């Protein structure tokens, strides 16, 4: 009896969906983001960014004569939920393009579905594995963690720091970045002499850092981390009196990190996109107008500071819009081809040049090496 009730509930929701589809068809942008849960600090700015810019684009006439319609679901960072929502976006909401997957895990869960449904999919997550090997319908906006490693190691080499300790969290981002860093360290003549980790919800990393302190060979420490962990690492680092240079990853490239870590963050370096230092970029910088505009728009509307993650969503949406404009509509195959043909798109993450073998289109010049000075980010050199 109850089962029948659910059946009718399902029927009801189908018919609702059908009526909605009858309206003058807008272009549908589907997003599944980790708006709550442990990765909420990714999904939250991403969602806000998407909502704000979809509104703006519609206010200025939409794309190719059609309005945009944004459909967002919260996967709470759970890959299985992400998969179901991706499916819902593709099959029930019938979106024209997918933006999202705040984390690598949620992205990977949706990749086979997007491929199967032959729908362009722009991921907002970091791992190289998303676009390597190249998947026909899958693109991504953020730099990869490998590029971050390369940027950090290049900087270390320049400072003659060759014996390095890595401390990383146990989350997906952390582990992936740690793995990539271990792989490319040798290319820069850097040797990893200590390798520690901490749990995502840990409240104190003194124990791990004490071990690193006990290792006399260590000349620098790299924290491959994400979320609040790196801020705790930074504070414990200073409390324990560790004096060698500390590097963080692009995973904490936000003002929030500096706020949480407080004075302990002084001197910390990390690779990040131009967005974080929008206002101090030289005027000659190509990205300056884009990042300054986005930063001011976002901060004016939401009264909170921008993070690189919102920028990834901005780039994802704008890349899709750009491709649709060039494709003259929302035809999936045409949009995909147009995406792959993106050249010289200037976004918050860098200048994007996609090719058939590169579905990200960024190179390491997009990363800036930043340092915390007097509680603010400054460009190194």
């Amino acid at each position, binding site marked *: 009896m109850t089962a029948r009730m659910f059946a009718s509930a399902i029927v009801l929701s189908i018919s609702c969906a059908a009526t909605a589809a009858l309206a003058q068809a807008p272009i549908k942008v589907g997003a599944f983001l980790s708006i*709550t849960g442990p990765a909420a600090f990714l999904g939250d700015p991403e969602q806000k960014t998407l909502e704000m810019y979809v509104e703006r684009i519609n206010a200025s006439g939409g794309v190719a004569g059609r309005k945009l319609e944004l459909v967002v679901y919260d996967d709470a960072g759970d890959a299985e939920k992400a998969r179901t929502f991706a499916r819902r976006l593709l099959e029930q909401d019938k979106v024209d393009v997918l933006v999202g997957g705040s984390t690598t895990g949620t992205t990977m869960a949706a990749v086979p579905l997007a491929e199967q449904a032959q729908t362009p999919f722009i991921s907002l997550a970091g791992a190289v594995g998303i676009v390597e090997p190249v998947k026909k319908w899958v693109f991504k906006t953020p730099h990869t963690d490998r590029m971050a490693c390369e940027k950090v190691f290049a900087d270390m080499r320049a400072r003659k720091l060759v014996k390095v300790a890595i401390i990383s969290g146990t989350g997906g981002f952390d582990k992936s970045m740690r793995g990539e860093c271990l792989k490319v360290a040798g290319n820069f003549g850097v040797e990893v002499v200590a390798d520690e980790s901490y*749990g995502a*919800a840990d409240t104190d990393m003194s124990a*791990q850092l004490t071990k690193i302190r*006990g290792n006399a060979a260590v000349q620098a420490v790299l924290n491959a981390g994400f*979320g609040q962990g790196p801020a705790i690492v930074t504070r414990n680092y200073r*409390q324990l009196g560790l004096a060698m240079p500390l590097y963080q990853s692009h995973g904490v490239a936000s003002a*929030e990190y500096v706020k949480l870590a407080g*004075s*302990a963050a002084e001197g910390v370096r990390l690779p990040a996109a131009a967005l974080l230092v929008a206002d101090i970029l030289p005027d000659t910088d190509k990205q300056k107008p884009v990042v300054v505009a986005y930063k001011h728009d976002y901060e004016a509307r939401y009264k909170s500071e921008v993070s690189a993650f919102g920028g990834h969503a901005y780039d994802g949406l704008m890349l899709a819009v750009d491709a649709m404009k060039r494709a003259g509509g929302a035809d999936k195959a045409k949009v995909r081809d147009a995406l792959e043909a993106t050249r010289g798109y200037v976004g918050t993450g860098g200048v994007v040049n996609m090719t058939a073998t590169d579905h990200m289109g960024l190179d390491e010049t997009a990363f800036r090496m930043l340092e915390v000075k007097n509680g603010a980010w400054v460009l190194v050199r």
Partner: protein
Amino acid sequence: MTGMWLQFLVTGITVGAIYALVAIGFSIVFNASNVINFAQGEFVMIGGMSAVSLLATGIPMTLALPGAVAVAAIVGLVVEKLAIERARRADVVPLIIITIGASIFLRGLAQLVFDKSVHRLPPLAGERPLDVFGAAVVPQSLWVIGVTLVIVVALTLFFHRTRAGKAMRAVSHNRLAAELVGIDVRKVLRASFGLAAALGAVGGVLIAPIAFTSYDAGIMLGLKGFAAAMLGGLGSFPGAVAGGLTLGVLESAGAGYVSSAYKDAIAFVILLAVLLLRPDGLLGARSRDRV
């Protein structure tokens, strides 16, 4: 490095003291009502987040911190009134679900009332670490340990010297007898929820300068507090303190000497071992035969 084990010990005791506060909360509620309140961890979060919000409005620390504890205590009373009191006759498992539902509700509410980002409270007394035989000790750690100590002493006095405290103990020993001698059991129940929530909030306020706080910070702390209460013996205050400190030090030493990835696993393996060898916890009373 002689400072190494000392460092682990200090770190472990600091975190362990917070676990102990949460565990005491579990025990107080359990003694009064036989309920395991899975929402206990949320009071830690509410304490921390309320303090952050109150400070943001410009209220000075001396008012904001007690204010945050009061907010949590009020929420505790409301939860008791709206959820637990109505379900007093429910079985153990539905009660577990009710408290889990309450914790989900509170987390959702915190998301709306506060926000989703991570916050830090300023420490009570500076940030410059003290050097104790080679171990770096943050002043806040001393605060955590000191306040926990004071609370444990105060609670002991409360439960043994005051009328209200004795009434609460009487209820936990024998509810029927307590009712017969004229103790208002419902009042006691409500008071224990308020007290447990306040204790959790104190933990939340104390730990936020070290470990930060956010709307979902309560899950893990609640879980660890529950484990600590179990480890020490559910319902026993000395047990809760011993359990909390043991768990904290084990975790810290596990991370330092064995594997930081397996530190939580180590803690739970030891907890399982203790449960299997001493099913009533380290300091719990042996349960009696049931016929």
